[in-house]
């Protein structure tokens, strides 16, 4: 009898580069040792293994790249992520995936794209933002709204500075609470919406943030801006233990988020009581 292939066998990846981004988040550039490309689409995730410690689902933060390297930005939160923070370039980690359904980039072409990122939500959203910016001429307006709790939590500062400089990107940043040196917007992310205008029917909205953020941003995007519900994309965080639709932890109502998501249109999930609180 032939032996089946294990769903749980990771591929080795080497940490090529790692640097701190904030007090809690670290950036990692990874290279698959077998030379293959990860082959992901923006919005997908991987299961990162540190053997002896465990495995954790992590969003892919980079746009698909020709050389096959990929990037993660990881908050030290649990056992695996804290241990990951202690690793240096050259260290090996296990990678399974990419898993799930990412953002349907092709369906966004020709449209204006309104990105809304709250906190760590910028991490998966960056994979899509950079994909869109790499093919900038295929899209209409690009608007990026990004909110953090405080200035020290702002991620990817160099890239934000570039987005801010570009004429073809409308970038707005806010923090819930400023500090002594902060001169920008202060207030929760919903406070940025009055600053922008959109043509709702030619706009897709892409929203990624902490669970609490969605219902408030959705009021802005759906009720106030009038963007159709099937043109609103969200990425939902859940406990993806296996990534392959078996272990049950990521299920919300009848939907396995690791299989049908993590990216959904609002239209797809608005009737699911367990999707958004």
């Amino acid at each position, binding site marked *: 009898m032939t032996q*089946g292939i294990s769903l*749980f066998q990771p591929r080795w990846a080497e940490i090529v580069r790692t640097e701190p981004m904030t007090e809690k988040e670290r950036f990692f550039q990874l290279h698959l040792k077998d030379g293959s490309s990860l082959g992901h689409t923006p919005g997908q995730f991987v299961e990162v293994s540190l053997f002896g410690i465990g495995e954790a689902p992590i969003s892919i933060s980079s746009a698909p790249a020709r050389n096959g390297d990929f990037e993660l930005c990881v908050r030290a939160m649990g056992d695996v*992520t804290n241990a990951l923070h202690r690793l240096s370039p050259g260290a090996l980690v296990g990678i399974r995936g990419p898993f799930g359904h990412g953002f349907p980039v092709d369906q966004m072409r020709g449209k204006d794209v309104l990105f809304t990122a709250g906190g760590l939500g910028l991490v998966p959203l960056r994979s899509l933002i950079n994909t869109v910016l790499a093919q900038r001429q295929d899209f209409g307006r690009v608007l990026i709204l990004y909110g953090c709790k405080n200035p020290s939590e702002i991620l990817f500062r160099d890239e934000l500075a570039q987005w801010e400089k570009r004429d073809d990107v409308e970038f707005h940043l806010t923090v819930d609470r400023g500090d002594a040196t902060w001169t920008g917007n202060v207030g929760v992310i919903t406070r940025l919406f009055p600053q922008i205008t959109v043509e709702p029917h030619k706009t897709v909205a892409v929203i990624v943030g902490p*669970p609490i953020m969605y219902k408030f941003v959705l009021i802005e995007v759906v009720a106030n801006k009038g963007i159709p519900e099937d043109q609103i994309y969200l990425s939902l965080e859940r406990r993806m233990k296996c990534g392959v639709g078996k272990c049950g932890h990521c299920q919300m109502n*009848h939907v396995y988020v690791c*299989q049908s998501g993590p990216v959904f249109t609002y239209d797809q999930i608005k009737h699911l009581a367990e999707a958004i609180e």
Partner: protein
Amino acid sequence: MSLKILDKKDVGAFVSGLMTELEVVGAQRKDGGKYAFGVLADPADLQLSYPTTILPPKKYFLPAEETLLRFQLGENPTVQPVIEAKPRVIFGVHACDIHATWLLDVAFAKDNADANYLEKRNRALIVGVDCPTPCDEHSFCKSMGTLTVDSGYDLFLTDLGEAYAVEVGTPAGEAMLNKHAHTRPATERDLARLNTVNAARWPKFTFALEMSHQDIPNVMGASYKSPLWEELAERCLGCGRCNLVCPTCYCFNVFDEVQFNLQEGTRLREWDGCLLTDFAKVASGENFRKNRAARLRHRFYRKGKYLEEMYGHLGCVGCGRCVRSCLVDIDPVDVFNRLKHLCNL
């Protein structure tokens, strides 16, 4: 489908023959009078007339704890997948458990085929056995349409008194029968006897549900906001025993263990339960099902609706193990019936 007759006095020899070439598992009587599936050391230990087992035969395909990977740490780390499976026959499985196994087979084969489960399952043979009487007052297989089964077994035995009628379900079942069992072809008289036995069984089981099992998904669909969930959650201890004994619960956790030498270890999966507090909790501390009523509802929705929608078979097979093990007597029959009345369907 061919039918053979196996005299009861020849069952022991059949089992002995099987034991020479594969692991034979069967229901055995434990201290305290309960029954459990276990590997047979002696054919005489096999019970074919037993009222349910503590755990379903699921444990042979999805063990309570199972190694998925073996790894070496250090300078040149390595990792190998582990897929353990051995030829085995599970001898004497009730119809409800065969139905449940069918559901697990689909769940683990669909989309991403889970080799750890499927290799074990594919190397196992199942010999079903009929239930002449209900296991006890908690079984409600007749209500769930699982008192009988017409596939999912290699052989199926029906007790005719002095002998078993053996229905052949698969070529592998027929081969094992031909090789190890002394049988004779069924006669017209045997067939008549089998029909009598089958007909006599039916009235001994009662319909406990006040609806067809096919209506359960509709009842569930109308019951999401039922006050019953909060009421049950007042009693429910959230202990997860119902998850552990259920023949169709298959959710699992994955974790690592390292040997004392800190050089090698294993990645394992273990049974998990959606009733347990942290089941949907992520590293940030956010718990996506923090309310016990929501967890209890989720379990009932999986059994009564979600799994049916995903795999085409209700997640409840009426075995009654959950209510037998429940410390506060939460009874699925009672839950389904009360939901039906509350939602006026």
